[in-house]
């Protein structure tokens, strides 16, 4: 692969990452993907990559069709898109050619390059209603209750900027909390507090949007608020369709709000949305047409008692039978009168029941919002304080003072500064809870689409993780969770046939282990089939046979590029895009993935990530009078070669023989300096470093030691220095440079070329 192919590859990977979490109807992401495609087209065109350009053109027209609502079945369009992206990746790797491309284009109705624009039947009603934009629903004003859409064409005045931006951030937060709480409500539909927690934010959004004259947002939130008001007064049970409507409403509000923000930024009129379809659904729920049978409020006392082993199941059955005859009598009382349980057991059961109901409710954390710039400043200053403190303590004149009080005070100071540093580092950490809770929705939606019954258990939600890491890790997590529901959990029939409970369980767990944060995605599904994986890998030419392959190694084949893409073309679910993308993201975060799987019992993926991205474990070396830090993960060993192990190729390329392997020698002096100094390798040291499977010997003057350093950016103006990944403040207060191993390898190659 040459450089341009690499660029193309990484652009495609980014696109694949976005496509794999794309939800049908998500207009914002549609837009993102369209602009990525356009960017790719430019690059591909420049390379003269014929088939790829043709494919990308096709994808672009699918995307345009989706955005304009010309493709009737959004879900199918999205599936077609992900399939196409996978094909593009395999085209680039040279694994597919014109033939596959032709098949794909024909299947998508793109053979003549015409956009897929079959006369569109109306979108399915349970589709996320966002696709219905203003122009497709002119009948909006025929609804007598709804005032005419007046928001089209409006622009915002500059003086509203602060108000609007405040509204956008706040509303998006509100919507997220609604989403979490509404799913809680699904389990405890009559919990007043949770109901209020859903109701209030809608009320706020309604108020502010009315003030800002965002008519459509105002209407929709008003309608939703009404719905919840009914629920609060007990006239409606929030379950089934009501929950679906509210979630759809949340989705649409989010899009409308983001559109308002985008419109303001680009100084263009805001696009108005039609909220008619949703309002109709809300109306239907309110009039009772679509009300699903009210879910009984779980957990029930009987279940709790049995689960805790306090009462025999038979006794509960008996008591329930009696309760049916005398419905006004509480179960606990019946159990008591039957002598099946003592008062203490019933009391314990009641307590547990209450705890379960409350435990599910989101506890409002006490938090303060801080500008990240202020936080970074604080971290910088604390880092300096630690250095200043150690410099004072290490000063020979201070050390010469023979005073017990001073010594005690100094060590107290050292303790405080260390503690202070720990606390400030902890400020970068956020509980993983929010990310996990977003998965509740993912599991629910995916399971629903597949007609599977799946429940998600969350463990260790309070585990903290680096804030910057959370963002990068979200998409791969969505993908893996979806994969577990999609491919891991069997259908209800299969499960029953296998003697498993009807409902599958996916568990997300987070915990700390040995300086890492571990995240587990566990399912009790069918497990990975080693034979199938190996067979497919052989078919795809990834391996030649499975001799000497451990189970773990065999399972890891699913992360190979080209493995899951093979699947996507045959797989009707069309969601196979790139486990390789998942793996790549985890590697970027310096994490590792482990797979355990038992056929018929389920699969566990364990992701081990470093605690923070801010600190790197480094090997400090010296060359050309400067100190450099090599990431320890890249260092294989260091040694002083013997003279006879050194050889040259045509007097230029230098090599060192290490245990039978000839490794190219890179003089760090040449890479970082003009290379006037040419120490002999046998007089100094070489460090063997590895990157992407390639090994090189790095000639340095001296090894100083291993140290954990805080990574600092060198800033915008020096970001193009490829051999340096960043800076670090060393113990003496000076800056040490962190080397970018890949950049060093490249610089060396360019020098020789």
């Amino acid at each position, binding site marked *: 692969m040459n450089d341009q192919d690499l660029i193309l590859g990484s652009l495609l990977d980014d696109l694949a990452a976005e496509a794999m979490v794309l939800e049908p109807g998500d207009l914002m992401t549609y837009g993102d993907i369209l602009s990525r495609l356009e960017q790719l087209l430019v690059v591909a065109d420049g390379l003269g990559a014929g088939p790829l350009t043709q494919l990308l053109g096709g994808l672009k027209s699918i995307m345009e069709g989706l955005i304009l609502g010309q493709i009737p079945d959004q879900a199918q369009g999205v599936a077609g898109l992900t399939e196409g992206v996978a094909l593009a990746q395999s085209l680039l790797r040279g694994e597919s050619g014109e033939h596959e491309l032709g098949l794909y284009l024909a299947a998508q109705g793109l053979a003549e390059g015409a956009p897929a624009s079959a006369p569109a039947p109306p979108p399915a009603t349970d589709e996320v209603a966002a696709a219905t934009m203003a122009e497709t629903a002119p009948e909006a004003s025929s609804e007598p209750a709804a005032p005419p859409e007046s928001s089209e064409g409006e622009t915002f005045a500059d003086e509203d900027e602060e108000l609007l931006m405040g509204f956008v951030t706040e509303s998006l937060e509100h919507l997220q909390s609604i989403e979490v709480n509404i799913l809680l409500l699904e389990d405890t539909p009559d919990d007043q507090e949770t109901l209020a927690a859903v109701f209030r934010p809608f009320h706020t959004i309604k108020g502010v949007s009315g003030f800002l004259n965002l008519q459509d947002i105002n209407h929709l939130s008003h309608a939703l608020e009404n719905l919840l008001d009914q629920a609060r007064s007990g006239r409606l049970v929030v379950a089934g369709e009501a929950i679906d409507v509210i979630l759809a409403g949340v989705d649409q509000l989010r899009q409308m709000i983001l559109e308002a923000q985008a419109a303001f930024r680009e100084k263009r009129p805001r696009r108005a949305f039609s909220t008619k379809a949703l309002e109709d659904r809300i109306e239907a729920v309110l009039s009772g047409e679509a009300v699903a049978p009210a879910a009984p409020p779980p957990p029930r006392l009987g279940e709790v008692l049995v689960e805790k082993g306090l009462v025999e199941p038979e006794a509960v059955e008996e008591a329930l039978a009696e309760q049916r005859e005398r419905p006004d009598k509480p179960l606990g009382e019946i159990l008591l009168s039957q002598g099946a349980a003592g008062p203490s057991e019933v009391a314990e059961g009641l307590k547990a029941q209450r705890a379960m109901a409350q435990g599910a409710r989101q506890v409002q954390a006490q938090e303060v919002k801080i500008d990240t710039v202020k936080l970074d*400043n604080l971290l*910088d200053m604390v880092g300096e304080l630690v250095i200043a403190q150690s410099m004072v303590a290490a000063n020979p004149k201070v050390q010469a003072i023979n005073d017990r009080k001073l010594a005690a005070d100094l060590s107290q100071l050292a303790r405080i500064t260390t503690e202070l540093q720990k606390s400030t580092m902890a400020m970068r950490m956020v509980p993983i809870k929010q990310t996990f809770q977003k998965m509740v929705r993912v599991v629910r939606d995916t399971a629903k689409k597949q007609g599977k019954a799946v429940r998600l258990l969350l463990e260790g939600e309070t585990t903290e993780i680096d804030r910057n890491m959370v963002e990068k890790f979200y998409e791969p997590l969505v993908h893996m969770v979806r994969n577990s529901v999609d491919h891991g959990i069997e259908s209800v029939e299969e499960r029953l046939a296998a003697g498993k409970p009807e409902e599958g369980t996916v568990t997300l767990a987070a915990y700390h282990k040995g300086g890492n944060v571990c995240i587990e995605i566990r399912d009790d599904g069918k497990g990975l089939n080693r034979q199938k994986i190996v067979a497919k890998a052989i078919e795809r030419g990834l391996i030649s046979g499975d001799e000497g392959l451990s189970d773990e190694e065999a399972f890891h084949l699913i992360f190979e590029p080209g493995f899951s893409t093979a699947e996507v073309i045959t797989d009707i679910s069309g969601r196979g895009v790139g486990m390789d993308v998942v793996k790549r993201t985890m590697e970027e975060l310096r994490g590792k993935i482990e797979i355990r799987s038992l056929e018929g019992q389920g699969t566990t993926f364990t992701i081990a990530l470093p605690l923070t991205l801010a600190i790197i474990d480094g090997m400090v070396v010296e060359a050309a009078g400067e100190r450099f830090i090599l990431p320890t993960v890249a260092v294989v060993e260091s040694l002083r070669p013997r003279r006879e192990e050194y050889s040259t190729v045509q007097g230029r390329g230098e090599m060192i023989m290490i245990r039978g392997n000839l490794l190219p020698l890179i003089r760090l002096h040449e890479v970082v300096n003009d290379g006037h100094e040419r120490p002999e390798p046998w007089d100094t040291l070489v460090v063997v470093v590895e990157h992407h499977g390639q090994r090189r010997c790095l000639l340095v003057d001296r090894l100083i030691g291993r140290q954990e350093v805080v990574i600092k950016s*060198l*800033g915008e*103006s*020096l970001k193009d*220095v490829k051999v*340096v990944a960043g*800076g670090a403040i060393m113990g003496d207060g000076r800056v040490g440079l962190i080397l970018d191993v890949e950049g060093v390898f490249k610089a060396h190659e360019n020098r020789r070329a």
Partner: protein
Amino acid sequence: METKDANQVEPREQNRQLGGKYLTFQLGEEQFGLEILKVREIIGVLDVTKVPQTAAFVRGVINLRGKVIPVMDLRLRFGLPWREDDERTCTIVVEVGEADGHRRLMGIVVDQVREVVSVRDDDVENTPSFGVELDTAYILGMAKLEGGVKILLDIDRVVADSQLVIG
């Protein structure tokens, strides 16, 4: 390196009010003025860490209370001959705005810092095209003061146009 920018220079607003306080410094034979609002602090010459793949006028990076910032030798940046640092050599830390709205700190090494002067609008004359080695694109104007003529420097432009990284 300055020549490429000549085309990009938009006609400067002739009536821009240039009065205000300036920090003056010496570079070779000439005296320059920097808008005081751009100056964050003045420090001595700190021990720099050299950065590979950078232009000759980049001295390297320093630790400014926990932040890593680049340091530029203004003499070399303007093509003046190199000169040994002495006890008067100073680093002026300037804060410049960027097109994307971010602010950036940069250290600028000058021969000597002079004083803070007040410049009235009337003191400033537009830049004549005269034969300094320095591109007039980087000059806001010339201030005629009692102590002599000061070249008012457009530091934002100097920093923005500097290609720190080579290769």
